[in-house]
Structure formats: C-alpha cells, structure tokens
C-alpha cells in the first residue's frame, strides 16, 4: 500500500502543507523581531561610519536608538544636489537596493548628517549610503565625509554573499580603517575617490587616493572601488554645494 502512487502523492501533499504551515507560521511570528533587528542593523551601519565598531558593540539596542536619534538628522537629495521635499520621502525609508535599479538621475539619495548632541547645526560629518556589486552579490556601505567635504572620516562596508575570509573581509574594521583620512578630490578639485589596490601588505600612507587591497579578493575590491566612484559621483553636486559655502564660513 505504501508503495502505491496514490499513497505517495497524498503523503507528499500532506507533508508539504504541514511543513509549509510551520514555515509561514514561524515567519509570521518572528516577523516583527526581524524587522526591528534589520532597522537596528541599518542604524548601526550608519553610525559605524562615524564611531568605532567597539563603541557600537558596547551599546544596547536602546542606546543605539537613542544615540541615533540625538546625533543623526537626515535629508534626501537628487542627483543635482537639490533636496527632495516631497511628502512621505524620508532618508530612512529610501531603499537604496531598489533605487539602484533605476537610472542614476531618477534615484533618491539619502544623506545622514552626524551632528553634535541636540544641535543639528553643528555638523560633524556627512554620511552617504552606497550600493554596488561585489563578486557574488550586492555590496553596500556608508561613507562619512568630514566637514571639509573631502576627507573620509570613516566607512562601513557590508555584503550579501562575498566569500568568507576573502571578500567578506570588507566588513572588518582592519580593512575599513584603511580609508580613514583619505581624500575623494584631488588638488584640482576633480573627483578621483579612493581606489583599493591589488595585492596586500603595501603601505599607501603617502597617497591620499589609494588604500591597501585584500589578498585573494581583488574582484570584491574592484566592486568597492566602482561603488565608491559611482556614488560619490552621484553625490558630487551635493558635496560641492556643501563645501563651497562652508569654506567661506570657515574663512570668516
């Protein structure tokens, strides 16, 4: 009886329904916690561009949320650097991964502004989200620029499926620290960003536009380079607009 086709078909169908119910049930029940975890993780990534990973790791989720809301304000701009003030548009809600599929001119570009506690005018750095392709899947990150709008204050990089131990190392503090203090514009004001080099172990202290590479992960490194170049290009108008008046204020 157990070998009959009817039995097998009915057995499989019933099993599929039971397991399907179990799975959708667990997804339903756990959904709210997962959403919360994802939102918290995004905040951590944004903050990671301006404060160290150890500091973030030491914070409880409540502290992260409190710190984020007291220190980060945000705006959304378009590719020409103009602020998008449409109803319902907020930097936290922009899904960069979805926007990435649109042409660069049509995307919304969130900017996260790190400011002194409770003083939104006292800007300490500007944080720009980025998105691109690694070796296997998407990579993304947040780049913080100091108020000179040229010096990199910090960067967080993340990935969906880079090779552990190789490309996945972009998430490590040791790799991300290499970007700190580098410049995205050259002396003439042209956008050159920062290029991760092939090979590992060389020092690029003297070169403001090069960082040491990751051995065995050149393609992931190239992905990071392309992402930086593309997104800094998209934000260039905004960055330039912010840097000129600032320089004047500083001179006064």
């Amino acid at each position, binding site marked *: 009886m157990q070998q009959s086709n009817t039995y097998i078909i009915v057995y499989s169908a019933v099993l599929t329904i039971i397991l399907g119910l179990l*799975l959708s049930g667990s997804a339903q029940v*756990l959904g709210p916690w997962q959403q919360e*975890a994802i939102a918290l993780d995004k905040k951590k990534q944004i903050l990671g561009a301006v404060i160290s990973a150890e500091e973030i790791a030491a914070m409880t989720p409540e502290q992260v949320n409190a710190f984020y809301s007291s220190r980060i304000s945000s705006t959304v701009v378009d590719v020409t650097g103009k602020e998008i003030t449409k109803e319902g548009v907020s930097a936290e809600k922009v899904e960069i991964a979805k926007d990435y599929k649109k042409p660069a001119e049509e995307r919304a570009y969130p900017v996260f502004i790190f400011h002194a506690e409770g003083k939104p005018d006292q800007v300490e750095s500007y944080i720009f989200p980025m998105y691109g392709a690694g070796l296997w899947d998407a990579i993304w990150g947040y780049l913080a620029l100091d108020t000179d709008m040229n010096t990199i204050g910090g960067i967080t990089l993340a990935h969906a499926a880079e090779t*552990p131990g190789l490309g996945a190392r972009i998430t490590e503090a040791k790799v991300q620290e290499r970007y700190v203090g580098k410049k995205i514009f050259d002396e003439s004001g042209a956008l050159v960003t920062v290029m991760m080099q092939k090979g590992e172990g060389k020092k690029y202290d003297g070169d403001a536009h090069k960082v040491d590479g990751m051995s065995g992960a050149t393609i992931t490194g190239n992905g990071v380079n392309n992402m930086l170049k593309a997104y800094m290009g998209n934000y260039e108008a905004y960055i330039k607009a912010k840097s000129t008046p600032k320089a004047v204020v500083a001179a006064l």
Partner: protein
Amino acid sequence: MSTETLEKVVVVKPSESLLSKRRKKLVTDPLIDDNPITVQVLGICSSLAVTTQMQPTLVMAISVIFVVALSNFVISLMRNTIPARVRIIVQLAVVATLVTIVSEILKAFAYDMYKELSVFIGLIITNCIVMGRLEAFAMGNKPYDSMLDGLGSALGYAWIILTVAFVRELWGSGAVFGVPVFQYVSSWFGPDFSLATNGLMVTPVGAFIILGLIVWVQRTKTGYVEH
C-alpha cells in the same frame, strides 16, 4: 498499525533506562571513535568556512546540534509511514524546514550572527552529517534512540569545529571569543613586545592544516586506519 508495534516493544523490554549503557554509547561513540568529521570525513565544508572565530562557530555548532537531533527524532517518528521511493525527498523537506526555522530565529534574535554565518546556516541542509544520520540510523530506529544518535554526531561535529575555531581565532586574530588575549599577554612582557598573529589561520587553508593535525593526533591515538 505502527503504534501497536511500538507499544509491544515497550512491553517486552520496559527495563532499559533512559540513559542505559547502549544509549550512552549512541552519544559518546561519535565523539571520538566514530567522529563525523575526523573519521567519517563529513561536514568538512562548513567546518572550514565558519571557524575563523569562536562565537559564530558556537552558534553554528548549536544550530547543527538542534537540526541533527530534531530531524533524527522527527524522521524516526515518521519512519514507518515514509514511502521508500520518496524517502530522501521527505528527509530533505523535514531538514530544510528545521534549518529555515533556525535561520529565521537567528535573524530575529541574533541578527549579527545571522549576517556573519549567512549562507552556512542554510547549508546545514546539505551537511552530510544530517542526511547521513537520517539514512543510517533514524530510518530504522526508535525516536528517542535516534535523537541520542543525532545528538552524539552533532556533538562530535561541534567539539571539532570549536577546537579548530579556538586555534584559528587565537593564532589568526590573537583573541578568544573576541577577547584580545595576545594583547594582554604581550603587555606583560613590556611595551615593545607583541605576539605576532598568523594570517594563514584566518584563511580556509589554516582550517585544513588544523583539521589535518587533529585527524593525525586522533588516529595515532585510536589506531584507526582507513581501508
């Protein structure tokens, strides 16, 4: 039909205690003598990939213990109803469901670990230890015994990957569970002294070497030879 036979068996030998000698052997055998990694050489892929640090390795170990023990238990409960022709698919479906649930739980409550382990949690489905135990044991034994057998195999897997992770994290990153041991130790010897870490340990190659050494030591001790 199946419940009747089960009851009969229970009546015939009600004396076997929950932790009888035979049952203890089910758990302890795979720890050394029949270790899934070092003797059966199963589950190598994940043991190489996740073992750069202790913490994700521990999470991986717990997940595997959960999946193997529970899938053995569930499949053993179902064993008399499973049609022989689709048994592998049925086993896979059960294993995949359990693995997905583990992955969802991690995503909700340990998001950092979920990110770090990423594909490797999903890949527990293809871990040969799981299917191996289902086919070799759970399909022909009672639920409780099957669960113990799964627990044993998973523990055998767990201690090996934890050992590999300990060596790799200590030597590769100078830390244990993220605590920078090398830094502390270096500071005892004065400010200029620092223990060097070895980058090889961070790559999968390091795991191969450590695993090879463990197999060597173990086989020297137990005298196990492959035929």
